């Protein structure tokens, strides 16, 4: 079964693995996104994630459904965290299980790529110089959103 959630607590990747694991599957692929100390050459101290939660969960549910159709994967779990995250904190985790490794791995990649394109979640990065900016991946030069 699939499950999506936007959460405000720490994400435990091991619990996602356990959730998709079963004797029916032979391969589990997990992707974990974490807060990195540098981004585009700037030193980051932390990230505030915010979301339009109802739509984010709806959109992630659609993505898992599409992934199921594309790759035949019936067991995918996604959690995305919002709120104030520190360096090294897990922001997102995706686990997918399948009889074989190729569909499991392709599924995980598809889901993270789609999340980054279309799930209404935003992040404000805080830098060591005391400034902060909304991250806008659509801008070539990564200038702040707006």
């Amino acid at each position, binding site marked *: 079964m699939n499950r999506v959630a936007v959460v405000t607590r720490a994400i435990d990747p091991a619990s996602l693995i356990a959730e998709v694991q079963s004797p029916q599957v032979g391969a589990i692929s997990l992707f974990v996104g974490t807060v990195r100390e540098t981004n585009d050459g700037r030193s980051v101290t932390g990230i505030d994630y915010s*979301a339009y939660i109802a739509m984010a969960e709806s959109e992630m549910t659609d993505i898992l459904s599409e992934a199921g159709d594309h790759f035949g994967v019936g067991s995918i779990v996604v959690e995305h965290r919002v709120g104030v995250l520190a360096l090294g904190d897990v922001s997102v985790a995706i686990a997918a299980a399948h009889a074989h490794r190729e569909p499991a791995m392709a599924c995980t990649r598809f889901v993270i790529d789609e*999340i980054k394109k279309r799930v209404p*979640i*935003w992040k404000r990065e805080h830098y060591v110089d005391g400034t902060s900016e909304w991250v806008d*991946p659509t801008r070539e030069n990564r200038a702040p*959103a707006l």
Partner: protein
Amino acid sequence: MSTVTVQLFASYAEVFGAPKLEIALDPGSTVADLVRRIQSLPSGELLPPSPRVSVNRKFASPDKLIGSADEIALIPPVAGG
């Protein structure tokens, strides 16, 4: 005329200094009409030319008709993951 509530998030909420806007629309208005109305508000010129809009939690095309019961949001460039 009917009034719709437009949810704002992240950088767009900062532009208008509020988490939502109340916008009066003529019957038969579309997403494009709504966007033009919002861009004509104070600070509205800070929005991009074609910001993404969601209607009932789905991304909506500019020609989509808007009803007063719809759940509407203006969606800044997303940065999840």
